[in-house]
């Protein structure tokens, strides 16, 4: 019997103002999934994730969580920081916010919370930056800080929006190792243009361009990808890892 999906998005339609961004999108995320969401800029990838997270309410359709995931245990790493970098907080304090829990809202952070932050910072090579102000670190470092903040929450599902967009090769390796380890326990959903970077981990690919163009790990042919990206796309398959094709996508 097939495993019951953890999250089911059924016939989601959503837009901003009068503009429809997602139309009739149905998508399931399984426990243990590593789903890459690809598609052109403005195609609705981030919006879809925000709908799944409950940050946006769809115009029609519904998102069903088949397993109860505790509030505060949904990890989310946005593509861009959603805060003012001038806010007087240090890197360690930003990551510590990942340990916030509705039930312990009135209680101070514990020694365990701080130990967990120190461990994640070390894992992501951020220990030296712990006392730096978030304004004083680079874009790539900030992205790793946001990843650390999501991971330190011990999430039961993790969503990452373009996590490899501005980090160097070494940091990407560290991130890949971390995601691989997390994916042994929890499903991971990654919005990316860089499928090759995460290829060994990706189990399924969903192409979103307003509609869900392809899904369920079906073989991607050039026509489908052109449909997804709204233009010519080169598809290069170079071997397979665990039965999953590795693909390089280049927009012409």
């Amino acid at each position, binding site marked *: 019997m097939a495993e019951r999906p953890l999250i089911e998005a059924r016939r989601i339609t959503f837009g901003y103002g009068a503009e429809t961004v997602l139309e009739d999108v149905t998508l399931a995320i399984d426990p243990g999934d590593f789903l890459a969401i690809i598609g052109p800029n403005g195609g609705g990838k981030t919006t879809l994730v925000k709908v799944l*997270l*409950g*940050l*946006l309410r769809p115009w029609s359709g519904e998102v069903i969580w088949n397993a109860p995931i*505790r*509030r*505060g245990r*949904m990890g*989310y790493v*946005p593509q861009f*920081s*959603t*805060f*003012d970098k*001038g*806010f*007087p*907080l*240090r890197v360690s*304090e*930003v990551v510590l*916010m*990942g340990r*916030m*829990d*509705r039930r312990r*809202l*009135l*209680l*101070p*952070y514990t020694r365990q919370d701080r130990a967990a932050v120190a461990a994640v910072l070390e894992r992501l090579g951020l220990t030296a930056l712990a*006392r730096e*102000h978030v304004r004083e670190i680079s874009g790539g470092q900030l992205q790793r800080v946001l990843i650390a*903040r999501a991971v330190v*929450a011990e999430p039961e599902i993790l969503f990452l929006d373009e996590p490899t967009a501005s980090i160097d090769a070494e940091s990407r390796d560290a991130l890949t190792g971390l995601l691989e380890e997390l994916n042994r326990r929890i499903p991971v959903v990654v919005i990316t243009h860089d499928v090759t970077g995460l290829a060994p981990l990706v189990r399924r690919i969903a192409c979103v361009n307003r509609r869900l163009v392809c899904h369920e790990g079906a073989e991607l042919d050039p026509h489908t990808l052109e449909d997804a990206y709204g233009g010519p796309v080169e598809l290069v398959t170079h071997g397979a890892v665990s039965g999953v094709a590795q693909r390089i996508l280049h927009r012409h």
Partner: protein
Amino acid sequence: MPGFFDALSYEFMRNAVLAGLLAAVLCGVVGPFVVVKRLAFLSDGLSHAAFGGMGACFYLHLDPLLGAMAVALFCAVALGLVDTETIRSYDALIGVFWAVGLAVGIVFVYKTPGYAPNLMTYLFGNILLVSRHDLGVLLGLAVGVFLILGLFWKGIVAVAFDEVFARVQGVPVRFLMTLLLTMIALTVVLLIQVVGIILVVALLTIPPLIGLMLLNDLRGVLAVSTAVGVTITLGGLGLSYAWDLPSGPAIILLGAFLLFAVYAGRKLRGGALRSLPALRRE
């Protein structure tokens, strides 16, 4: 400045100093949130929106302060609960409250039979005319603000810093945002009638800006902001007494001078005080 200390034998001067200190402390802890959330316009908007409540209370023969507080609470709750996806700009909404409140106030004053009071005088309090009752109200407000910040510090900081992440974490964002805005709104409306809008805006912005230039962590900024507020309030009152200057402007100009001095100092040093080793230690 022996003359200034001699003046403290007068009750009005003692009350002015106490009111100034309470205002400085309140603005010192609330101001940094106003600055980092870019809500400086809120203080101006609320002061004029409160005019509507005061006008209504005047018409109904009630204490205008009640009307001002009711409007402040209404605006805070409305701003906290409003759907930010639909209303894209806090600033614009505050502008609406600004205009509508003033309009409502003018209508009520116009419809009140007999002598039409100049309610605008409520907006320009005089720190030298502070009564014991005013001091009691400010003390109550200060206790309330410290209690709220003490209890909800973690959540309020999280919501003020990153609302989106706080929502994903399951933090009650709207409740905490409403709490933060209520705290700011009540501080603004009550202080305005005691020390005047100009001094409130100055104390809500100058000390936090200095704190933000000097330190990296929010608690430190609150502490510096409070200390700067207290310093410029006492110093300004002293200067006001010594040189026969109006008290509010003396406080504000001293604050502006300090702000410029810290800014210039930072530029000349090529770095912030926060890079000094002694201040980097926890």
